[in-house]
């Protein structure tokens, strides 16, 4: 029982890490209060759903949507910068209210366009499972697990080895110093926000592969993504994977012991504990 919960939790946990890496960049590194991140994820899922209706493979659809999301992310950051960051004072309150409003608008538009029913996609790897003795692992989880590792690992490599990636990390550390080095922090942040948003398309594809989606799903994922990012330590990619697994395992243990009705509280509960006990996270900078 417990072993099974741990294995499932680890697989799901890597998936949680992958849906959170975008937030880890936008909130963890860039300090943008991106509370609409989960709503972007769900938009990604619905985009994939539309393409899957035309017999696209969901994962391919997610990858194809990524550049579109990238462009949207750049525009979104540019807008946020012009309206809030550039004007300076009181960014916090208004920026938060702005993204909160955006999340609600996205949610309602999805409800109006698609209804409140759950939507799902079809693919050869959805529905079948791998049998290892007593244990049955759905292939969809394994697919999500592999893509999650690739996405998190890829982003982590990008940030630590490429020139732009290191510039993104630098802007997180000291924006003023970057300006002195002759780099334009706004352009770097805008690029980074684009990347963060682009991951939402791929993560959204995984979301709809792992389970059916509905427009209100973003509310649960506010808890999961922020829990992972805060527990990881803001902006830490390795920590994201570790934090995702901790959340996944905790959730799956609570589920097997107490039942599904307690599930929504696990991520938020863990988040509160982390905020109270170790707000800098596991691998905080």
């Amino acid at each position, binding site marked *: 029982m417990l072993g099974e919960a741990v294995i499932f939790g680890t697989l799901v946990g890597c998936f949680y890490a992958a849906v959170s890496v975008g937030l880890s960049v936008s*909130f963890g590194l860039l300090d943008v*209060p991106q*509370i609409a991140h989960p709503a972007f994820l769900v938009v990604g899922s619905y985009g994939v759903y539309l393409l899957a209706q035309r017999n696209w493979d969901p994962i391919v659809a997610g990858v194809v949507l990524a550049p579109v999301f990238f462009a949207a992310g750049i525009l979104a950051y540019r807008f946020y910068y012009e*309206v809030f960051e550039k004007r300076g*004072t*009181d960014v*916090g*309150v*208004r920026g*938060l*209210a*702005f993204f*909160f*409003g*955006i999340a*609600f*608008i996205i*949610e*309602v*538009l999805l*409800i*109006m366009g698609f209804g409140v029913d759950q939507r799902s996609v079809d693919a050869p790897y959805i529905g079948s499972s791998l049998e290892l003795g007593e244990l049955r692992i759905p292939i969809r989880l394994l697919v999500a697990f592999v893509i999650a590792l690739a996405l998190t690992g890829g982003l982590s490599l990008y940030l630590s080895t490429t020139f732009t990636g290191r510039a993104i990390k630098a802007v997180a550390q000291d924006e003023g110093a970057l300006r002195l080095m002759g780099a334009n922090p706004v352009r770097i942040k805008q690029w980074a926000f684009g990347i963060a948003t682009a991951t939402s398309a791929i993560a959204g594809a995984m979301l709809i592969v792992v389970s059916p989606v509905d427009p209100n799903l973003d*509310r*649960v994922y*506010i*808890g999961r993504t*922020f829990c992972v990012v*805060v527990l990881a330590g803001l902006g830490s990619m390795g920590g994201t994977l570790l934090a995702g697994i901790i959340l996944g395992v905790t959730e799956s243990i609570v589920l097997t012991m107490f039942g599904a*009705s*307690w599930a*929504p*509280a696990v991520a*938020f*509960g863990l*988040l*509160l504990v982390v*905020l*109270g006990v170790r*707000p800098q996270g596991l691998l905080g900078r």
Partner: protein
Amino acid sequence: MNRNSTIFWSGAAAALAAALLLVATVRNEYVFFASYVVLQFIVLATAWNILGGYAGYVNFGSSAFFGIGAYTSVVLINYLGAPLPVQILAAAAVSGALGYATGLLTLRLRGIFYSIATVAVAIIIETLIVNWRYVGGSTGIQILRPPATPPFESYTKMLFIVMTLMAIAATAIARYIETSWIGRGLRALRDGEVAAEGCGVPTLKLKLLACTISGALMGAAGAPLAMYQSYIEPVSTFSLNYSMAAVAMPMIGGSSSWIGPVVGAIVLGSIQQIVTVTISNEANVLIVGLILVLFVVAAPSGIVGLASRLSKTRSAPDRL
């Protein structure tokens, strides 16, 4: 009492007199049913603004405080058959304590962590209530209304007057905070927390005080909900739509003074009532979201700010 206070209290008296006149003359129950919601939003928005507007800490989980207030009443009705005033006071105490606890956990961190924590509190409490059979669990519970107390001819009319009194009390409290040393301290820490602390402002104490008062008022606003609906269930009671409205109304009205949330709640609350009835509940949430984003982007000082810029008769305090 200075001139402003005289104006405030005569305005409050006029509002109460108008409400009583309405009760005495209008027979259509729906008027009171709808007005109750708008008044409830005045309390909720005013409560949000004490922390969000004055101190700059954004509460996204108003529904938690509102809902825990409503369910405190449910427990008291079930257990003791407690009368309405007791319910309201108890609800305020419980949600005030929740506000204090949430503040204690997160107020040493940056503002956004407080915001995220409040969402967390909302979802966790909703989950607790869903799993608590005694108060009906996820299916909810019917509440038997007691007969209306004379001189009121119906319970809805009575609740309408009770909510009017609570709205006046809430704005009076917000106004007191705004004009006293508490408000000055909160504004100082909003503009620069380290600087305020350096100047001897007890920032943590002030924030905790604001969290507690704000939470208590939200709980009080939720306390009569079960009686108002004669029924209560967790999903709609803890709906983040309440949180959304509590953020949107002060931002739209203007978050730097007590009048802003009142204006925002009346304008947006009335629009919501009309749209919900004539179009749909989804359209209602969409409109709230759109108006919020529009104001945050284009008119950061809200309707009150726009109005004072138009009239320019007296220079309003610098808002943002």
